[in-house]
């Protein structure tokens, strides 16, 4: 069944998939044990004659104790094993240093992506500036924000680099889902959450929304382009040139 998993290209995805398979095999084992016993009983212990008496037995404390203790140990083991991986991928204290930072904003039914400009600095954002034309709420007075550029429904990142995503939503709850990266995180309005991943392979991947956000929920799809560092740099420069061009043609900003 696990063959159906979408190809994993993320670094921590290996750990996740490994854990997935461990739980999978444990489950199959438990399922088989229980059902073999079960079916054996069903076949062996049928009533054949009327009035025939069954074994009169109320239970056994030792057995009771062992099938309490065994699952307890097993599940505690699973919990602690899982937690190691969980901490690695979610705890902010364990997040590796980011090579690329991208802000992602969910809006029914699209994804906005924001990159810092050539200065590498994001302009200040504030909830009160959020509007349908300024989904990130970038402060118009902050010079660092002037060269930030945004894309809709398409994200580009360099391969083998740690990407930090700052995630939020401007309207309802969405969920940022990258099947091939084993990433899923709700985007909650009024709140910013960081997630990170690192793709080992170039290619085009899909981004979906995993939290019901209205009747267009299924349409909330974006593409993730994982490219080489060179291609990524070229793309960035291009974007930057575009932004500068639009700044030049825009009416003067300081007109008080």
């Amino acid at each position, binding site marked *: 069944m696990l063959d159906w998993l979408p190809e994993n290209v993320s670094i921590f995805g290996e750990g996740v998939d490994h854990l997935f398979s461990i739980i999978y095999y444990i489950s199959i084992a438990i399922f088989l044990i229980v059902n073999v016993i079960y079916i054996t009983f069903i076949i062996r212990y*049928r009533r054949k004659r009327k009035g025939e008496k069954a074994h009169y037995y109320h239970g056994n404390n030792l057995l009771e104790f062992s099938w309490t203790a065994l699952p307890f140990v097993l599940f505690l083991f699973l919990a602690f094993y899982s937690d190691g991986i969980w901490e690695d991928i979610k705890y902010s204290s364990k997040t590796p240093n980011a090579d690329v930072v991208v802000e992602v904003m969910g809006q029914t039914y699209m994804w906005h992506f924001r990159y810092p400009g050539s200065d590498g600095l994001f302009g200040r954002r504030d909830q009160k500036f959020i509007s349908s034309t300024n989904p990130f709420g970038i402060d118009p007075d902050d010079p660092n924000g002037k060269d930030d550029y945004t894309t809709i429904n398409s994200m580009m990142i360099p391969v083998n680099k740690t990407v930090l995503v700052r995630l939020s939503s401007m309207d309802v709850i969405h969920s940022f889902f990258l099947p091939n990266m084993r990433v899923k995180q709700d985007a909650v309005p009024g*709140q910013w959450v960081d997630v990170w991943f690192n793709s080992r392979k170039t290619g085009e991947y899909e981004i979906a929304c995993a939290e019901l956000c209205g009747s267009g929920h299924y349409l909330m799809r974006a593409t993730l382009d994982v490219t080489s560092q060179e291609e990524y740099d070229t793309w960035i420069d291009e974007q930057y040139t575009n932004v500068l061009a639009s700044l030049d043609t825009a009416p003067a900003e300081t007109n008080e």
Partner: protein
Amino acid sequence: MEAAISSEQHGHAASHGHHESFIRHYIFSTDHKMIAKQFMVTAIIFLFIGGAFALFIRWQLAYPGQPIPVIGQFLPSTWVNDAGAVTAEWYTQLLTMHGSIMIFAVVIPLLVGTFGNFAIPLMIGADDMAFPFLNMVSFWLFPLAGMLMMAGFLVEGGSAAAGWTSYPPLSAVASTGQTLWIVALFFIGFSSILGAVNYITTVLNMRAPGMKLFDMPMTVWAVFITAIIIIIGTPVLASALSMLFMDNFLNTSFFLPENLIVPARDMTRTAGGGQPLLWQHLFWFYSHPAVYIMILPGMGVVSDVLSTFSRKPLYGYKAMVFAIVAIAFLGIIVWGHHMFQSGMNPLLGTTFMVSTMVIAVPSAIKTFNWLGTMWRGKMEFTAPMLNAVAFVSMFVIGGLSGIFMASTPVDVFIHDTYFIVGHIHYVLFGGSLFAIFAGLHYWFPKMSGRMYNERLAKWHFWITFVSFNGTFFPMHILGIGGMMRRIYDPTIYDFLKPFQPMNEFITINAMILGFAQLLLVINFGYSWFRGQKAKRNPWRANTLEWQAPSPPPHGNFDRPLQVYRGPYEYSSPEAVQDYLPQTTSPEELAEQHRHHQKRLEQQQEATVTQD
């Protein structure tokens, strides 16, 4: 809490001479058995409505954008497009209403309303509930609520469409359908609380003389604990609903952050300061225990049925009771495992994961004790037994798939995918609903005074069992493939395209599953009036309800009861037969032995004289 405090059954029942009016008897009845039947009939009607919704959903997923066969062209244009295919708007309403109806108007009313009402007074030897009038009110709130919720389809903008979990801000944008949903849930919560108060009081105060708490059958224990969960959880849901209502209408912002812009709904809010996650905490604080509300009574019923038809004492009775208590307690503190990917602090994720894993332990205890009950039994595979056996096996699958979700890193991937939908249905359909089928068949003779048709019941079981697995097992694979839940058209994603044949397979099975349920209705409908007359104790069971006539009259028992022992003395060496009812006194037992001895001697004489 030692012995029973009051015992009101004093044989006044059978001598009721006067005739109740039709309305008093069938509509505004205060008799717990009639109320149980009212819950049953209403909930089964909702089962078919909710089931039809599921089939529309499934049709769309298998054949996206294609007209619904036969009826598509007759549906209103707010539901289907010109061609007669489900629209995305209606789809979202359907899945919201499917979940809401199935949970709040089918499974909870059947398990708690029907079995709680029917079984508790009879199984503890009481003549009715402690508060019969409250009981009637508790029932009538339920169809009212169900109809309010359904009325959403008829109002402008359609029904609630934010999923049965109704996460704000999506649900906090006023629409008439959403408001109806909120009010309906409020009523249902009210109904639950009235019922729960009644069950708790009845169990504590009205047990037959001699019945100690640990002489109660598991069904009674399970509903009793469930009632306690209801009392703890429901007020929290009620407050959450009130807050949501106020966010909708009074411009409060409990769940709305600052500067919220929902262009799709024409809404901007500059004031705010609320927290969307607050709703999730409150909602799951009720709704996680609610999934135990939907499984514990089923576990109780299955324990009773397995013991009866294995002709064996329930293995580890006390452990089974403690396991239920443990599940209830742990169930209340693990709500956060629905919120691992919600933006909640990941540190909380860790703690919720550990507590969730621990909750698997009492579930394992229950499973092994059921196996122990069957060990060296003399099983009779009647319809209730088949359904109970299926329950255990399906519950194991549902429990195991739960482990995947409990493990936080794995949940990152499978959260909000079809894996969850597969899991839900193994627990709610394979679990709760099979337990309900087991219980309905088990008590059918007592409810109606007649026997159901065993052959038809077995056909119903086998078709249901096979098509159930054909429907829901592949959903785990869809989830592993990453198919998101609640999407209208999976085919627009490249990575989901390979799953289309599987989606068709599921839908065909779902159709069979849906239509197979007609067999149940035909069987029950026909047998209720035409079935063979049932004896008092057709299953040769020990518990008190089988000491009442079938069906029991108003007031239940036609002779005074005295309880001498626990409910599971099957195949006791003390007894002549393979069962020993709770009410058989030591004198009666001695008498039976004398009788038996005499018969043996007579038989021996007969053979001697023959020689």
